[in-house]
C-alpha cells in the first residue's frame, strides 16, 4: 500500500522494523497513555500521535538497544498524553522560569556516590528525570528531543538545563541533608 509512512521512513527494512516495533509495543503504549488520561478514546489519539512522532525520527533511534528504544517511546507517549490532558483540562502549562541563568554553560554536577545520586534522581519529577534520561543516557541531540516531545529546540535546551539545575541543587543541598 502506498502510504504517507513512505515519507517518514525511507527504506523497506526500516519500515518492517517499525511495523514490528508497533505491533510489539502498542499495548504498552496504550496502557501508559491510559494511565495518564483515563479515557480510551483520548489514549488512542495520544498513542497514534506518539507513533507518528516516533516514525519521524525512527531512522535516528532505531539502533538503540530495544529496551532503550521502548523507554524512549514510552516517554513520547507520556508527554503527548500529558499535553492532551492539559489542553482538555485547560490547565496552565508549566513555564520554566529563567532563574538558573539559561544560556550560560550548564553547571557541573557535584560528585556524589551512587546511592546518593540515585536518591536525588528519585526526588526529581517524572518530567525532569525523563528529559535528563533522553539527553544523558540516550545522548539525543536537542532537536531530536524537541521532535519527540513536540516542543521547540530552544524549549528542549531550557528544560534540560532546568532539570539539571534542579538535580545539582538536590545534590548540593536538600538531598544531602536528608
Amino acid at each position: 500500500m502506498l502510504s504517507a509512512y513512505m515519507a517518514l521512513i525511507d527504506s523497506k527494512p526500516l519500515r518492517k522494523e517499525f511495523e514490528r516495533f508497533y505491533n510489539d509495543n502498542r499495548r504498552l503504549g496504550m496502557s501508559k497513555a491510559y494511565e495518564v488520561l483515563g479515557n480510551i478514546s483520548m489514549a488512542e489519539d495520544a498513542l497514534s500521535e506518539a507513533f507518528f512522532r516516533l516514525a519521524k525520527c525512527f531512522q535516528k533511534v532505531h539502533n538503540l538497544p530495544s529496551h532503550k528504544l521502548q523507554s524512549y517511546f514510552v516517554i513520547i507517549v507520556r508527554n503527548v498524553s500529558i499535553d492532551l490532558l492539559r489542553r482538555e483540562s485547560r490547565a496552565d502549562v508549566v513555564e520554566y522560569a529563567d532563574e538558573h541563568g539559561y544560556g550560560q554553560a550548564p553547571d557541573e554536577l557535584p560528585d556524589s556516590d551512587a546511592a546518593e545520586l540515585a536518591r536525588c534522581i528519585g526526588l526529581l519529577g517524572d518530567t525532569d528525570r525523563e528529559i535528563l534520561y533522553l539527553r544523558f543516557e540516550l545522548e539525543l541531540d536537542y532537536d531530536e528531543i524537541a521532535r519527540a516531545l513536540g516542543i521547540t529546540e530552544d524549549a528542549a535546551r531550557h528544560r534540560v538545563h532546568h532539570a539539571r539545575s534542579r538535580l545539582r541543587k538536590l545534590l548540593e543541598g536538600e538531598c544531602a541533608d536528608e
Partner: protein
Amino acid sequence: MNDKRLGTALAEACEDRLLTDSGALPEGFEFSEGFEQRMRGIIGTERKPFLRGRLKAGLIIAAIFAAGFCLGMAREPLWNYIVQHDDGGRNISFDVNTVKDPKKKIEQVYELGGLPEGYDLVWESSNREACSRTYGLKKGDGAELYNVIFFGQYIPYIYYDAHFSDNARYCFDEDGTQYYVDETPEWSGAVWYQDGYVFLVSGSLPKDKILDLCKTLKKSES
C-alpha cells in the same frame, strides 16, 4: 560528575518504571476500528478483509479498471516501472530508460496548490535528490494528528522499491497525463512523471480526490 555516570544512574532510575505495564487498561480492552484505520495510514499494514470486504474490493478494482480503460488504460504507457512481486503487493522502481529527460538533481521545487481545508504542514525534508512534505489534519483544536497527506518529488533515479498493493494500475486522465494509481478502502495514492521528476501524492482520501490534488501541482516560488 561526568555525563556518562549521570546517564547510567538515570537509566537505572527510569527504565524499569517506564517499561512496566501497570495493567491500567480495562479488562478485555481492544483497540477501536477508528484507531486501527488511523494506524494503518501511518504504518501501512494490510488488513485481511472479510469476504464482504473482498467482494467490495473486487468491485472497486473492476470499476477502476473499467474507468481506466475508458480513459485510455489500453494505451501504451509513456513511462514504465520495473516490478518485483513481494508479500502482499509489489515493489516498483521507476525505469529511467523509458523517459528522455530525467533530472539528476532537484533544480526546481514543486508544491501542491490545492490542499483540502484544515491540512497543515507537519513535516518536510529536502535534499539534492528528493523533497517531501507531510500535511496533517488536526482533530478539533488539539494538536493530535488525525489524517495525513503526503507529497513527494524525486529525481527518477532514486525512485525505487516503492511498495504498492496488487490493486495498482496505470491510468490516463483527460489531459493525457499517465498516473500509476493505487487504491484501498482506506488509502489512495498516485505517482506520475512530469518535467523530469517523479511525483507522488498519497493519503486517506478517495482516488478521485487524490487525482484532483495531483492536478494542482505547481512550481514553488520560494
